[in-house]
């Protein structure tokens, strides 16, 4: 969790806040969000049945390209193929899926566990094209993971919820009673502490 610049959990009793911090921390770890969150503040007031959370996400999560996890080159002399040597197998399924779509399934082979070859004419011309294929866009999955994290971290019974996602700014307020405007305003203030007053959320 060292990558988070701010990670604050506040509650009426400080020992309970420390305990709840572990729950939030587990949710962040499970959903691999530690790299994506810059600031997070959670306030939980059990006596008011109130849970508030403000998050600032890190911007500029660059998409993963083939060059980020593999080396692309030509095959052995005389063979018309592009050879991709993979360092990180985690992206292999997405890589194969992309290559099947672009080059056709019949042209894509996997002679070894960490090697993929693509049969094509003039392989030298295709190297740069394959290197630039975007395999994964973390920004696309980030928002759904963020919402999932908020639901996991919230006490189960707090079903009346407000959320606002505006660019990199996320606010989540949950309660089991009627939502009060002042609670939402408080959450926006929590966010403003991080951003210096740039917060303006959309209700949902």
């Amino acid at each position: 969790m060292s990558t988070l610049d701010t990670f604050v959990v506040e509650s009426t009793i400080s020992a309970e806040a420390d305990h709840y911090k572990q729950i939030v921390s587990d949710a962040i770890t499970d959903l691999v969000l530690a790299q994506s969150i810059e600031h997070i503040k959670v306030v939980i007031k059990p006596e008011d049945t109130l849970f508030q959370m403000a998050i600032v996400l890190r911007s500029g999560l660059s998409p993963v390209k083939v060059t980020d996890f593999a080396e692309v080159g030509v095959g052995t002399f005389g063979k018309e193929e592009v050879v991709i040597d993979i360092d990180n197998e985690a992206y292999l399924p997405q890589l194969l899926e992309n290559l099947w779509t672009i080059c056709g399934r019949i042209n894509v082979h996997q002679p070894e566990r960490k090697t993929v070859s693509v049969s094509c004419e003039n392989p030298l011309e295709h190297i740069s094209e394959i290197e630039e294929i975007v395999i994964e866009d973390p920004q696309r999955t980030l928002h759904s993971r963020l919402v999932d994290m908020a639901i996991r971290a919230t006490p189960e019974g707090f079903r009346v919820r407000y959320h606002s996602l505006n660019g990199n700014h996320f606010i989540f307020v949950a309660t089991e009673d009627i939502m009060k405007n002042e609670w939402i305003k408080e959450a926006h203030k929590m966010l403003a502490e991080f951003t210096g007053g740039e917060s303006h959320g959309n209700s949902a």
Partner: protein
Amino acid sequence: MATVLEPYIYEGGIYKHGLLLELLEDLGGYLVQKIPAATEITLVMLIPDKDIRLMEDLSTKLLGKLYKSPLTGTEIAVVSPTLAYHHLPHSACDVAEFLRRGGCNTNMIGLARGMGRRVALSGDYERKLINEHDIALFSFGTFRDCIINKKPKLFEGIEVPVVVTGAPDIKTEDIPNADMYIGGIGRISHRLRKGSELDGLDNMNAKVSELIDSMREEIAKDPLAVLPARAMKEITDQIPEISTVLTPAPITLQLDGLRVKLPYDEFQERIGNIEFDEGPILSEMARIMPSKMKNYILIKIQTKSEVSFGI
């Protein structure tokens, strides 16, 4: 003087474990549960206290381990206000697992509407199901205010002793209608592995054992007409269909009865007619009822004072 049976667990290789079972039968002990796992086996047993030495010697010879398991012969309901999948792993799972290591059988019950503060509720069916157990252990969370002021309404209608676990340090008497509070085990969203968490679970097992001991003492004042373990043995011997039941514990022992995992309509009469060497049949000493759990049979053994004899 009646034989005192002590609960023990044997853990060792499956090779020659039959010798142990033969010795147990010769000594007049009972096998409560047999859990084979590949080449290993776990035997949950009740051994006559004077002959424990013999069992220990044979266990050592077979390179196995024999240790005391104070919770053997009990069935505990581990109740969680919610078992929602997005909160997995639940700390209640580890609570139940640790209780099982103490020898008891646990059933996890996730309440349909138990979550929240003002909105927390328990249903009539849920309460009846919980009341079929020896103890109800409620696994609560982090906040003192919730545990003291809001969650105790879930104990309404629970007639068995109520044990509560949670994170804060609270006195039992501060929680209305609870019989015991165990701190240090709150809502934790990872498997309990850290030293402090395991200490909390050890403490829980010790305290629940104390509660079980006091319940056993209470029962001993007016003993049961027949030992549940004895009834279990007779059912196993006289109803061969029980060997076809695939659940881990086809007959589950309780402090004052047992749960037989066979269909009620089909088997209740045969179970009632189980004969004992001394003469009486089971229905003369026990109430045989349909269980709220699936279509199982629940047997509650009556006390000697109720039936005016005992075997």
